[in-house]
């Protein structure tokens, strides 16, 4: 259709031309057609007098009443102006242009097409002149034209020349600075006009084509970069300062980016990236940050991910001086810094798949960097830092539930080579990923521990922690700190101490959810921490970091129910400090210091007055005889005689029976404290345990506190069978019901029902024989998830019953623990 229209139009054009040519052969003024006389009359005798207004009105009236003459009027005006330009009579040229402007505005839109041809030829003619004044005038006319909405698209019209010329003007290097600025401004305005004219209709001229974008974008950037300082605002007040080329160029770029649809974003970004490479604007990166922020602020929100993606893909792109490896690395680091500056803006608008894609891409770049890393290459380190920062920035602006997903994702990428067997690159990658994890972790605000540590995540963390080098292990502990520490106590607990009263710790009663959490995961956590203390390779930093973790658990999860477990861990640590043969003397002493410090923390968290007294006595005695068994820890204990070794001082040890007595005096249950230790001394010697969770189950000690599962009927939850559609709760299987609940929260009856169930549950813990509990807790995950789900359902009602999921059961149960909106991000769970 289009070509046909084109041909038709051309044909009409030629016909009208022919008619016109035949009728204009007569040259005597008397015989001249009326329109020519009308046109001639608008010109004054002297150009200074300006357009003859009254005659212009006549011409306008004539062209409105005989629109078929518009074509010829335009052509005639153009020819007159061409002649005047040739003779350098610029005053008349200006008048001709003014007349054309007025006619253009007066024209009815249906007849506009007839006139536009000559109008644009006129504009082009003026733009071709070397006179800045004419160029600027032409641009103004063009802009006026660009703002007119035409209702008949002209497919044959091309803006190629205008884009080329306006872009050239944007670079004006006129000797006179102010004239140069005016030409540049005109160039930018012209480009803005072309964009406005063409952007809405690709058939007219596809402005997004590379041949145009490669001119427009660098022209705008070149003007923006010439600003004295870069002020980045999210939204521009277009009225202010638009007379400066830099400001106007920025406004124009915003408009262009804002109009770009998904397929066009890349067309804009490619020349942007090339421009930054060519003009070496990455280092320093002030302008790059400015520009990319502007792009992020003006791009349609749903596409902001594309910008991040493009920049990420460009991290490795060649730039100037690409041959030099160091320069390349620096360039990469600078680009990554820009990335970290804009990624937060994208975070707010990113959805499921793109979130993980960004994370994955950052991790891939980190991995590539590690592979390149030549140990002492500090630029590479800077690059890694920048990437990690980008990761942190990005995560910081995501909702908390996504942060956990991201941490899960990262932790699963950490290589876990058996201790000592991994390559150097592996361990570097490990530590870098842990740093990233820490970065993301610090942006997470833990509310409920069960949310911060979904079972799979916790297990992955502990797995990584058990197979790493000392530095990485310390990092892992820091991750645990940041996730555990809800009350900002961690900074006060960096080293073992006995004077907790002076620290100003914030201690609050532990919630029911937290208790369930510790009941589920306590053994895994404690077991892993205990193991962590048994390693020959531990530095003091490792030991102190584990101390901090245990102390935080004690504070965050301290309750009557957990006192026994805490103390049992303390005893186990104390014992290992005597009996683990791989530990050095210093490590032995350090463990004694850790054990007593943790013991002292217990009465600080729960009221166990007798315990405090007992511990005080031991501390006093140690002060006298063995200060090396008290905090603070030291790097070395060189001058220790063999008689002062912890193993030689059994009477300075905390005694299991005595501790039991103290606890019993406060009316707490001591059954498990009195039981044999579940911790195996020197696990280094023992075969490595794959999972603490499994190990716990194997030992029949799956639960630390006296809370486990409900009555057997609770066990048969459908979520233990993979792939089965499971209604979020038995009573809400019907959609209608679910909607009502979503609207009004749980009904009174359901709330009562829940309460009742909870009560049965609790009594089951207390009364059920141990074997029974052991039996019913056998399929651990499901039980825990069921439990968690029950409690979660009090606070969070799924909007709709979960739809049938085809993911494996393990992932499914995880899915059910998270808020319902995560179901929009199924991809998040496939990793």
């Amino acid at each position, binding site marked *: 259709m289009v070509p046909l229209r084109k041909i038709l139009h051309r044909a009409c*054009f030629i016909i009208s031309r022919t008619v016109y040519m035949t009728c*204009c052969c007569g040259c005597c003024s008397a015989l001249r057609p009326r329109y020519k006389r009308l046109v001639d009359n608008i010109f004054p005798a002297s150009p200074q007098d300006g357009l003859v207004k009254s005659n212009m009105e006549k011409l306008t009236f004539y062209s409105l009443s005989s629109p078929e003459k518009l074509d010829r009027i335009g052509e005639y005006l153009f020819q007159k102006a061409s002649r005047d330009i*040739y003779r350098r009579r610029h005053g008349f040229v200006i008048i001709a242009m003014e007349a054309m402007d007025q006619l253009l505005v007066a024209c009815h839109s249906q007849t506009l097409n007839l006139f536009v041809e000559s109008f644009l030829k006129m504009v082009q003619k003026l733009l071709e002149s070397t006179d800045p004044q004419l160029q600027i005038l032409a641009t103004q006319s063009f802009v006026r034209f660009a703002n007119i909405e035409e209702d008949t698209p002209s497919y044959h019209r*091309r803006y190629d020349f205008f884009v080329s010329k306006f872009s050239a003007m944007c670079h004006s290097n006129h000797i006179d600075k102010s004239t140069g600025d005016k030409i540049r401004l005109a160039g930018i305005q012209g480009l803005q006009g072309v964009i406005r004219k063409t952007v809405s209709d690709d058939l007219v001229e596809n402005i997004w084509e590379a041949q145009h974008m*490669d001119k427009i974008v660098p022209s705008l950037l070149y003007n923006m970069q010439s600003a004295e300082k870069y002020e980045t605002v999210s939204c521009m007040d277009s009225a202010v300062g638009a007379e400066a080329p830099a400001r106007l160029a920025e406004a124009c770029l915003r408009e262009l980016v804002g109009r770009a649809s998904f397929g066009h974003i890349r067309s804009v970004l490619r020349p942007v990236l090339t421009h930054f490479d*060519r003009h070496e604007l990455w280092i320093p990166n002030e302008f790059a940050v400015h520009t990319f922020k502007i792009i992020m602020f003006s791009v349609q929100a749903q596409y902001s991910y594309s910008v991040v993606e493009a920049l990420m893909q460009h991290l490795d792109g060649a730039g100037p001086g690409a041959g030099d490896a160091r320069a390349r690395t620096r360039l990469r680091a600078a680009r990554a810094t820009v990335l970290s500056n804009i990624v937060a803006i994208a975070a707010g608008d990113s959805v499921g798949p793109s979130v993980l894609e960004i994370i994955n891409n950052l991790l891939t770049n980190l991995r590539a960097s590690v592979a390149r890393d030549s140990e002492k290459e500090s630029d590479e380190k800077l690059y890694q830092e920048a990437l990690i920062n980008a990761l942190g920035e990005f995560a910081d602006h995501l909702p908390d539930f996504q942060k956990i997903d991201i941490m899960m994702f990262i932790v699963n990428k950490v290589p876990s080579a058996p201790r000592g067997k991994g390559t150097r690159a592996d361990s570097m990658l490990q530590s870098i990923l842990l740093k990233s994890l820490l970065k993301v972790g610090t942006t997470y605000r833990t509310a409920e521990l069960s949310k911060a540590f979904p079972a799979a995540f916790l297990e992955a963390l502990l797995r990584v922690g058990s197979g790493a080098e000392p530095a990485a292990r310390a990092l892992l502990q820091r991750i645990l700190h940041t996730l555990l520490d809800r009350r900002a106590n961690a900074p006060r607990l960096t080293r073992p101490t006995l004077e907790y009263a002076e620290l100003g710790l914030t201690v609050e009663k532990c919630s029911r959810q937290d208790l369930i959490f510790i009941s589920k995961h306590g053994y895994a956590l404690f077991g892993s921490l205990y193991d962590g203390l048994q390693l020959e390779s531990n530095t003091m930093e490792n030991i102190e970091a584990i101390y901090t973790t245990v102390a935080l658990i004690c504070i965050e999860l301290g309750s009557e129910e957990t006192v026994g477990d805490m103390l049992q861990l303390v005893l186990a640590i104390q014992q290992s400090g005597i009996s683990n043969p791989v530990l050095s003397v210093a490590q032995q002493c350090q463990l004694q210091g850790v054990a007593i410090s943790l013991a002292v923390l217990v009465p600080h968290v729960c009221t166990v007055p007798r315990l405090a007294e007992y511990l005080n006595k031991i501390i006093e005695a140690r002060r006298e005889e063995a200060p090396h068994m008290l905090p603070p820890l030291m790097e070395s204990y060189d001058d220790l005689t063999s008689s002062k070794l912890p193993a030689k001082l059994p009477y300075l040890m905390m005694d299991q029976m005595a501790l039991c007595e103290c606890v019993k005096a406060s009316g707490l249950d001591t059954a498990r404290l009195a039981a044999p230790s579940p911790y195996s001394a020197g696990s280094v010697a023992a075969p490595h345990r794959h999972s603490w969770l499994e190990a716990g189950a194997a030992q029949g000690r799956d639960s630390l506190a006296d809370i486990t599962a409900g009555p057997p009927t609770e066990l048969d939850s459908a979520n233990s069978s993979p792939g089965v559609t499971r209604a979020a709760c038995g009573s809400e299987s019907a959609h209608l019901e679910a909607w009502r609940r979503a609207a009004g929260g749980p009904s009174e009856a359901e709330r009562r029902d829940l309460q009742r169930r909870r009560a049965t549950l609790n009594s089951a813990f207390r009364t059920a024989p141990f074997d029974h509990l052991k039996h019913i807790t056998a399929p651990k995950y499901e039980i825990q998830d069921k439990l968690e789900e029950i409690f979660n359902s009090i606070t969070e009602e799924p909007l709709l019953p979960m739809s049938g999921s085809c993911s494996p059961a393990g992932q499914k149960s995880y899915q059910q623990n998270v808020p319902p909106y995560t179901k929009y991000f199924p991809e998040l769970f496939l990793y």
Partner: protein
Amino acid sequence: MEDYKFLFKVVLVGNAGVGKTCLVRRFTQGLFPPGQGATIGVDFMIKTVEVDGEKVKLQIWDTAGQERFRSITQSYYRSAHALILVYDISCQPTFDCLPDWLREIEEYANNKVLRILVGNKTDREDREIPRHIGEDFAQRHGMYFLETSAKEAENVERLFMEIAVELMEQAKCKELPKYDGSLGPINGKTTSVGDSSCCLRS
């Protein structure tokens, strides 16, 4: 007056300082500008010449030689009918870069584009590139060759005139590649002559 019969786009490329701008200004304005500053981005000039009694309008795009403007200048290659590749006969490095330029032209320009190699500044005493070396290079790469001096106005007129002649011949044989947008009514390859001289304003 819009009475030209043909419109051709000519783009000048080559290292910074070889004298592209001086060549253009010598041709369009008839002068050798003292202290000509480096071109920023792209410059534009126009000149109408007569070939066999027919008017030919040359749109001349003078690009910056500086590396940093390479991306914008490349975007002008595409619609060019003729590309003038300039080096400085008194500056070996500008000659050594020619293969790089050819690669760029190969990548960004139309493959039928008319290519002319120009060794500029023949007025200088300190020639480094003998004429035949330039000639050889041009021949090997299927280019026209000319040595010029913008300063002494040597061969400058001839350079552009030969381009106009050559392009016109091509156009007449309908060999002229049809570029998008280059031949639309706006850009005016129009055969209409219009009333040229008789209707002067009184």
